[in-house]
């Protein structure tokens, strides 16, 4: 009885292996006939991670998501830099703060990005857990504002441009459901526990998965956007900026070391717009 069951089970596994091998051969054959491979072979290797696994559309979305002009409103939050500068004068060091902030962001928010990339179907659960884990009021507001901005970018432009594929369509359906949940949560705002909040981290992970970014690229782009947000916050916090237009970026050589060459002058027009209160 048992032997029979084992036999049929191992037979089933062998069939499955044969099937998978055949599919692999077919997929390899198809890959050999696609033009993109010829192009990739003729161009010099790029420094981007996992270049050879990138599909053209994924590269396109990689550039969009890493663009500093992506309208997520990340400039509105200094991630604690303003407070750090105020409390650590005159020993402030932007490079030190950057290290602290990256290490903190990588261990608090990045895991949610990666988890959503790995399991996009758990988006709502991850969003709820992250909502329970962000203690800082300003940080919560910024995370939700950026998450909602990303969701609206997805709905208005990305969703129409994503090539259909069976493994992604389930994730897309989940994302639609989440957006619906969010809208309902907003209309029936009651009690202290929201049904959905739309924090940036999990949404970023899920959307990056849907548009075809690899896990490593997703993590890299997400952390890079944090670095960019911090740098622009540092530029806005520099003494040249605080003093208003016309301040000299290099005025205080011994002071805080966050003044990039010429940055203060370039951006001196926008003052302290969007600074957290």
């Amino acid at each position, binding site marked *: 009885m048992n032997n029979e069951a084992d036999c049929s089970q191992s037979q089933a596994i062998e069939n499955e292996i044969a099937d998978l091998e055949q599919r692999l051969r077919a997929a390899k054959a198809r890959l050999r006939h696609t033009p993109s491979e010829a192009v990739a072979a003729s161009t010099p290797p790029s420094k981007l991670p996992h270049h050879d696994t990138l599909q053209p559309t994924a590269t396109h979305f990689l550039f969009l998501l890493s663009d500093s002009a992506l309208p997520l409103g990340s400039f509105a939050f200094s991630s604690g830099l303003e407070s750090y500068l105020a*409390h650590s004068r005159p020993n402030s060091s932007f490079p030190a703060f950057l290290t602290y902030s990256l290490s903190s962001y990588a*261990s608090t928010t990045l895991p949610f990005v990666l988890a959503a990339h790995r399991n996009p179907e758990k988006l709502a659960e991850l969003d709820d857990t992250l*909502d*329970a884990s962000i*203690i*800082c*009021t300003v940080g919560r507001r910024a995370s939700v504002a950026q998450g909602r901005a990303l969701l609206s970018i997805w709905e208005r432009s990305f969703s129409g441009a994503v090539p259909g594929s069976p493994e992604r369509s389930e994730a897309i359906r989940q994302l639609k459901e989440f957006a619906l949940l969010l809208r309902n949560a907003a209309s029936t705002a009651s009690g202290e526990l929201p049904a959905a909040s739309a924090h940036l981290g999990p949404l970023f992970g899920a959307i990056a998965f849907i548009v075809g970014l690899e896990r490593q690229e997703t993590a890299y782009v997400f952390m890079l956007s944090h670095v960019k947000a911090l740098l622009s916050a540092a530029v806005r916090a520099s003494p040249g900026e605080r003093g208003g237009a016309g301040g000299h970026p290099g005025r205080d050589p011994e002071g805080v070391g966050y003044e990039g060459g010429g940055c203060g002058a370039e951006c001196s027009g926008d003052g302290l717009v969007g600074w957290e209160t």
Partner: protein
Amino acid sequence: MISPFPPSSSRPGNGSLTAHLLPHSISALSKITFQYPLKLISPSPSANQKSVLVFLLTYGGGLVGGDQVLLNIDVKPKARLSIVTQGHTKVFKSTSRDIVTRQRLDVSIEMGAALCLLPDPVQPFEGSVYEQLQKFTLAGGASICLLDWVSAGRTARGENWDFHAWSGRNELWTASAKGEAGRMLLRDNIFLDGNLGSGKERLLKHRMQNMSIYGTLILNGPLMESLAAFFMSEFSGLPRIGARDFRSQANVDIDSEMKISRQESWRRDRLQLEKDDGLLWSAAKVRGCTVIKFGSRTVEGARVWIGSMLKEEGSISEHFGEEATMCVR
């Protein structure tokens, strides 16, 4: 001969506490068990106690590297329980980085019950590895006041955040009811790694910015509403970052001679203390919980500060009795 008694279910480091409400609204313990190295003591009850007081202790005054403590607490409907310690919870050195000293607290607070957990700070010694996990499940109308703080170690011996690792996680959950799973209200997770990455900033003592103590106070539930509102209002009244006093010295003198209320003078003294001790704090509301984070250059400064805040507002002593705040006095 076969023992007529059932085998013991007690395990080293495990303990269990149950607080009940007796007639005349007196809270009392119906169960208290513990095994080495954990030790629980409760003073004999008095007729007018507002909550039942329990001392959470360890034999020898600390946890030796590798000790595992697991304490289950059940606060039955409408009962009130206060937990305190008799001095810092010392965490001794682990012989290697893989030997983790753990404390786990699993608390269920039932309908209308309340727990006040105001212990002394945890004091991790040089070379210690510590992990703390505290989970609180709150039924409807349950209240909790929870303080969790960690110091830089034996600063008198020159220790300054020299432990290998310290991690503390506090989770608040709603109780599951009628087929609905409990939902997480709050997760406050702190990892302090003594030695991280490379460069000058890799050591924790540089990252802690001259703080000697770092703590979190979490409040939730109807009994804590007034205390939470008090912290929020004091926080919003703090001087803003970068704010300056534009008054001339003459005006400052005139203002200081003006009659001010007792509360205003308390606030002025407290702000001065915060400045002198380098005490920084913030308060935030997260999904119905109020979370206060604070850090100070001295352990004593933090103790005086939190004691002064709780005493000024007064509701903790009112609901749980004076003894509940003995660690922050």
